[in-house]
Every structure is written in C-alpha cells, then in structure tokens.
C-alpha cells in the first residue's frame, strides 16, 4: 500500500522536511521542480499551501500537512489528528495604531486573504462586514484607505509594526497539522496509523 502525502511548497516545507527526517520517514532529498515524487514506498505531492486540504479532502492524497489557518479558511472535511507544533502563528484582526475603536457605524471594511474566516468572525459577533479579498500585502490596505482593518496571520508582528498596524483581537491560533482523508483513515488504516505513529513520536 503506497500512501500519498500532500505537502505545501511554501512556508511549511522546511518544517515538514525536518519533521519527516526526525521521524525517520523517507523523504525525497531534492524534489526540485518535480511535483510528484515517488520515494521509498511513499508518494509525495508538492502543491500550493491552500490546495493541500483540497487534495486530501478528495482523497487524491491520503494525508498531508497544512496550517490550521488554511484549514479554517478552506473549511475542508478532513481529519486533523496531529498538531505538529511548527509553523506557529496567530490569525488576528489588526488596525492602524491610534485608530478609533469603532470607526464607522455602517459595515466594517476588512481586507484579508481569509475571507471566510473574516466574514464569520465578524458576523458571529454581530458586526456587519464588507470583506475585501486580497492575494497578498494585506498590511497595505488600511494605510491606503482600502479598508478599516485587516485579518491576517502574524508570527512576530514585525510586518504589522512596519506598516503602522497593531493586532487588536485574536481570531485563532494556528500551527501545522497532519491531516488525513476520512476514507483513507479507515480504508488504509494500517499504513496511515504507522505513519501517524512515527510523526507523533517525533513531535513529542
């Protein structure tokens, strides 16, 4: 039974590589530009961050590693049995320093790469919201008048500070998660349990 593992080519790759090495799980040396790599009984897919949950939800990959932030945004129907402990960051609401607490009486305008998370966060708190979806450099938006605030991930807060913003509310903590397809969990129980066991041992 060859398990297929979906990994992000992005910021979680270094942590995932390190984890697999520590766990003694075979890991391809240099994937280079190859997107599918068969390596010692495992098949690795190297895909975009936000696509990892999709590959796993559809069962194209049996398991994978994705940030909790990405999982929250994707709303994917997958198991998340292991918190891998790396890639720690926080999803926060940030706004310009010295901004008024309640800048407008009508809908709050929020710029974000996480429209789903941002929308439900504010609506659940009874705040009407207009979400402006951006693909990156979200920190620019309030300063240029595109939005009142942003919802984004922060690690150290350095980028926020450099752009005159401060985190005012925590939306959710995030870290890398080992995720498993719901059918693979049962239909490939032994292989999934073996891989999960080795990763768990390496995390603790």
């Amino acid at each position, binding site marked *: 039974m060859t398990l297929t593992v979906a990994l992000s080519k992005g910021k979680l790759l270094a942590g995932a590589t390190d984890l697999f090495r520590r766990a003694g799980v075979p890991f391809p040396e240099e994937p280079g530009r190859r997107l599918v790599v068969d390596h010692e009984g495992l098949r690795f897919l190297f895909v975009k961050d936000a696509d990892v949950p999709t590959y*796993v*939800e*559809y*069962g*194209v990959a049996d398991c994978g590693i994705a940030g909790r932030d990405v999982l929250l945004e994707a709303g994917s*129907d*997958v*198991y*998340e*049995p*292991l*918190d891998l402990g790396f890639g720690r960051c926080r999803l926060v609401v940030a706004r310009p320093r010295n901004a008024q607490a309640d800048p407008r009486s009508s809908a709050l305008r929020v710029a974000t790469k996480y429209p789903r998370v941002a929308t439900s966060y504010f609506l659940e708190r009874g705040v009407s919201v207009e979400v402006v979806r951006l693909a990156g450099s979200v920190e620019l938006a309030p300063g240029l008048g595109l939005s009142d605030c942003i919802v984004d991930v922060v690690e150290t807060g350095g980028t926020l500070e450099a752009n005159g913003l401060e985190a005012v509310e925590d939306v959710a903590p995030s870290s890398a*998660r080992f995720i*498993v*397809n*719901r*059918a*693979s*969990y*049962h*239909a*490939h*129980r032994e292989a999934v*349990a073996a891989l999960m066991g080795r990763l768990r041992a390496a995390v603790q």
Partner: protein
Amino acid sequence: MNGPSHRLVQVPRGVQCFVGDEALRRRAIEDLTTGVFQGWDYEEIIPPLFDYADVFSTPGLAAQTYSFLDRDGNLLALRPDFTSLLAKIAAGRLAHRAAPIRLFYSGEVLRYQPPRAGRHNELFQMGLEHLGGESMAADAEAVAVAVECLDALGVRDGVVALGHVAVFNALADAAGVDPAARGALRERVDAKDASGVADVLAGGAAAEAVRKALIGLTSLAGDVSILDRAAQTVRAVPAAVAAVAELRALVDGLAAAGLGRRIAVDLGDVRALDYYTGLVFRIFAPGLGFEVGSGGRYDGLLARFGRPLPAVGFMLGLDRIALLLERQGAAPAPALAAAEVVTSLAAACEKRRAGTRVRLTSGERTR
C-alpha cells in the same frame, strides 16, 4: 425584454446525466443491490417525489431542501432523503401493519448543497429501513445486509466503521459544557483533533477523567480491538460504558456470523448526532476519498408521525458506488448482446417476438 441568462444547452449546477456504459453500470448496481435487499425479505416502497415540507425536518437537511408553494399555498418540498418519507408512510398508510416492517427504496433525492468533494444536488440513493423489532438483532441485520451489498457489488476491501452516539453524548453531558462549547467540542471530535478538544475544555469544569475521555475519543478509531481500550478510556461515565458494551455485543455477533473482517470501529463519529440515537456506521473502501454509504439507529423519528417505533436503516450512494467501482478497476457492467440489423418493420417485430435484439434500419446513413 431580457433574454435568457444561459444558453439552451447549458446545464444547471449540480445535475448529472448518464449515457451508454455509465447508465448500464448504474442499472447493474441498482439491480444487484435490490437483489440483496429482496434476499433479506425487504419490501420495495416507491414513495412520492415531493411531500409537505414539514415531513422533512431532519436536522441539517432543512437548509438543503428545495421547497415550493402549491396552488393552495401549502409549502411542499422535493424529497431530500427517504427515511422521513418511509417513517411517515409506516405511521400512516401502513399503520395497520404489525412491526417489524422491512422496507427498501431506490431513487433520487434532491438537495441544494454547495459544490464540494463528491456531492451533487441530485443523488441516487438505495437503502433500507428496519422499523420495530428487537434493536440489537435489527442493528446486526442492517450491518450484515450492508456488508453483503459490498460483496455483491464486487467492492474490494470495503470497511464498515461502527460508532455509537451515546459515547460522545454521555461524555459531553458529564463534561457539563454550555451549548456553544458543546458544538465546538463536537466539531473538534469530528476532526479527530485531540489538541483542539483539549483547547475547548481548557479552564472548564469538566472532571479530569471526563476531559481525558473526550480527548481520547479522537483516537478511538480502528479495528475492533479499539473497543477494549474504549471501555477503559470512558470508564468514568456509565452511559458511555454501556454504549461501548452495546457495540461490543454487536461486533461479537457480526464476527460470529463471519463478517468480522469487514468491521471497524470509530467512536469519534459524531456527524449525525441530532438524528441518530444509537448505532451509527459509515462505509468506506480504498479508491474513493469519501464514504459510499452510511446508516444508524433513529428511535425518535417515527414518534413524530404518531407511531413510536425503534428503527435502524442505511443507504448506499449509487453515484459514489459507481465511481468507486470504476476507480477499483472493476469489470464494466456486462454488455448487451449485439443487435441484429433488420431492414423491415415486419422482420423486426418477428425477431422481437423471439426475444432477439434488433436494430431497424432503412439503409439510412448515420450522421
């Protein structure tokens, strides 16, 4: 005047159409499954395609139901599932019939749902309902029929994962969390996210043993030996212990009938808690990333229609079974015999009387 917003050949989202070999395979799947249901003495029921909307009040389905007003102003709905309809019929039209009543169905249900993995708006379901009778025996029978369906359909390495809603419910009751936290707890148990469960319970009033049991629930899935560990994990909460014991008896009965290798356990299955009251199960097989069927015990539903009867049932999704068989490389449905070409209607009718497949041509060219 505005023109139509779509081209005439455009299809609405979420519908499908099957032609030729695909249709043959679907027909074969339906016939094989129906044969198994009939083999266990279940009786076919062909319920209406729509009914009053209040019949379909299954939690979670209401938002997915296509409803409309009839000329008299009644709110009607296209059936989003069969179980409610069958319960209504058992309590109405079949009210005189003594329990247990064994019924099966095969047909489309319609649901509005956002496009996602393996979901369509028009689904073809085949399933059975066992109404009344002794619960443990009925549960075992339902699982056994499901296993036979997998075998009859040629599904390789299918797994039926059994759970029991009382395990989570009893632990959540014992944890004494408020409704919002209970929802969050259930969502994290459903994701098998141990650290997420711990976060929800952090700072709460739950006793340490209950807290540990709820966290443990996220890893109580696997082969049936899990039940031994489960009994230990939940030992602080008697109702959860009883539910595990009930599952143990069911598993032992299935093993004694030679079905053990198809059976697994998943005590973290909390998907359909609002609906089911005891056993729950889901059917998986290698090759498809989502379940191909599911079922469970719903002792509360028939009382709504005025005939309180315990009940268990399950359904298989024909669309998913077809996809699974294709992925598993199952042989295609047997082809029909080649049609004999005849050129006159009289000759064609004669051949048909003898049962021969014919293709009547008048020498026309195909185009």
